[in-house]
Every structure is written in C-alpha cells, then in structure tokens.
C-alpha cells in the first residue's frame, strides 16, 4: 500500500469548479482514476449528487431524467464505457435532451493495457455516429475553457457534448503500485 499523498492537478479542480458554477446538480459516473478527484469533490458538496452506475448507459438515461425533472447533469466515465452507451444515446437525439459527458481517454498514449485499444480508438467516432459533438482537451491550461464551452453549448444551446480528456493529460497509470 502506497502512503503517498496524491495531489490532484489543478485542471481537475477546474473541472469541478466549472460544473459547480454551471449549476450541475447530478453527476452519474462510472469511476476512472482521472476523475477520482472530481468525484471526491462532488461527494463532498451538499448541493451536488454523485451517483455511481453499474454501467455507463445508466448514466445517459439518468442525465436525461434529471433534465426532465429540471436539473442539470454531467456524466463522468472513461472511454471504454462509451461503447456501453450506444443505443441509449438514441434517447438524447430522439428527445433533443441537452447532454454533457466528460470522458477520460485510454488506449491512445503510453497505454500499458492492450485491451483498452479498440474502444479507445473508436470512442470519438462512436459518439459522433450517434450525433454527439466531440471536443477534446490535451493541455491543462485548456481544460477550464473547453469544459466551460461544452457546458454552455449543452445547457444554453441544447446540444449533446462529449469532452474527451486526452490520456497524455491524465498521465501514465502506475501499474507497479497499489492504491
């Protein structure tokens, strides 16, 4: 067991702050290490509801339900979960729901696990095929502006937006350590 205190990079606080300021109330997620800090902050915030899913497609349906009930939702997941959502994405287009997802990428940069490759390579196309606009962030200094732009496009413009957080932004997964 590592005793290292993990200090989250500032861009992860930027994500939380944009979601918070943007009035996001519900955050369905399937965990990823790259989202871990944001998830912790959401659970610590009494005005936000983090909801862990068994599979990512649940989050799509829940986010649409949140909007029906009058709240904004943002979904957190990793690229491997995008394939699990494909049919459920129909809900977004059929009903023109606003939609915002933040997706940590795997299988594209210094990836150790080859099983992440196929879905990582198909992530962007899968979302675009289902009518979702994809934005990508690869530099820490671009995170705040891009997430903010995506949030406004979703909830002011009524669009469906996925923001891909590049694996190079998140950094190498340390396979030799336990957490």
């Amino acid at each position: 067991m590592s005793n290292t205190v993990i200090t989250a990079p500032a861009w992860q606080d930027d994500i939380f702050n944009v979601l918070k300021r943007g009035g996001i109330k519900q955050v369905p997620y399937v965990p990823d290490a790259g989202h871990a800090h944001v998830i912790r902050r959401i659970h610590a915030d009494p005005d936000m509801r983090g909801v862990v899913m068994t599979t990512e497609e649940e989050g799509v349906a829940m986010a649409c339900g949140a909007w029906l009930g009058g709240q904004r939702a943002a979904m957190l997941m990793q690229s491997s979960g995008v394939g699990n959502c494909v049919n459920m994405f129909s809900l977004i287009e059929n009903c023109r729901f606003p939609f915002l997802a933040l997706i940590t990428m795997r299988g594209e940069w210094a990836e150790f696990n080859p099983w992440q490759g196929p879905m990582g390579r198909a992530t962007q196309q899968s979302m675009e095929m289902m009518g979702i606009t994809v934005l990508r962030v690869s530099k820490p200094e671009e995170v705040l502006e891009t997430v903010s732009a995506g949030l406004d496009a979703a909830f002011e413009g009524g669009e469906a937006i996925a923001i891909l957080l590049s694996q190079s932004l998140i950094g190498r997964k340390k396979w030799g350590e336990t957490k």
Partner: protein
Amino acid sequence: MSTAPNAGPGAAPKPGTIERRSFVAKLLAACPQALVVTGLGSPAYDVFAAGDRDENFYLWGAMGGAAVMALGIAIAQPTRSVLVITGDGEQLMGMGALATIGAQQPNNLSIVVLDNGLYGETGAQRSHTSQGTSLAAVARACGIADAAEVTDLGALDALAMRINARAGCLLAQVRVRPDDLPRVLPPRDGTYLKNRFRAVLGMASM
C-alpha cells in the same frame, strides 16, 4: 418443466392472473399526482390506455433505461412521487439499475414491473422471469427492502398508498396474465413528450 416451443430450461411458474390494463388504470387513478415513466412496449400502451396526461413520459426505446431515468427525475423532484411502469424484459435489461437505485434509496421512486414472463412485442418468447429469476428478490438483494411479488388485485390499494407516501423506494413485481391485447399507441415524438413534461412542472423547454 414446460415443453412449450419457446421454453428455455428454467423453472416455469404458473402464469400470472392479474389483468394488466385494469390494474394499471386503477393504480394510476389512485396515484393522480405521480410523475410516470414507462418502459417501451406493452407497459407504455397500458399507461396510455388509462388516459394520456402531460406527466407521462413514454419510452419507445432506451430499453433498460426506464427506472434509472426515473431516478434522475426523483432526485430532481423530491416532493413528487415518481412511478416507473415497465415490463419484465425491460427491467431485466436494466437489472444493474436496481443496484444503482438501491445505493441511492430515493424515497419517492416506485418501480412497478408488469411481469408476464415473456417478450410480448417479439413473439412471446419466455423471459428470465419465467425461467427462475425473481425481480423482486433481485431488488431486495440490491437493498430495495420494499420489494415483493403482487399476485392479486387486493394488494393494489396498499401499493398506491405506499407510492403516494414517498416513504421509501419500492419495487412491485406484478404477475400479470400473458394476454395479447390490442396496441394503444402513445405519442412517439420524444421532443413533444419532453417539453410537455417539463411544462407541467413549470419549466421552459430549454
């Protein structure tokens, strides 16, 4: 063990005896304030046949998503009863959602599964609930303590009271007769359904 052509190998309980349309009509009449989400197929027809209302959101797809969509509504609208009316096939596809809902314990969310033990839209193939799966038992195992099979109409009044009370999440697995009823088709324009649902809650379309 059944030897019907579509039979799978699992145990086949006796078919349910509750008439689904009248059960749904009576339940909705007893829960006039509820916000309703239906699963696709027969449950949507049952709810629409009971009388259309702006508070009904009919799914025509998104199979497996009804209960967890209702979770989003229930969290956003804590002072309203949110009622899912779905079928066994739809809920089986969203079985993980029962774990998600069990973890959240929304007091105002009720899930009514109209269980005919088969896939009625596609040729009446037997579903898992007629081959050994009890969705009520699954729900209890997921932490939804108030989860039971309903086998006669006598349970309806108490069920409606619990839905209206918003005192705990529940799942009722209602054993309905495997009838092949005429389809009564609700609106299928999703944008229309979304906008009227939000409007009746006092919200703009965007």
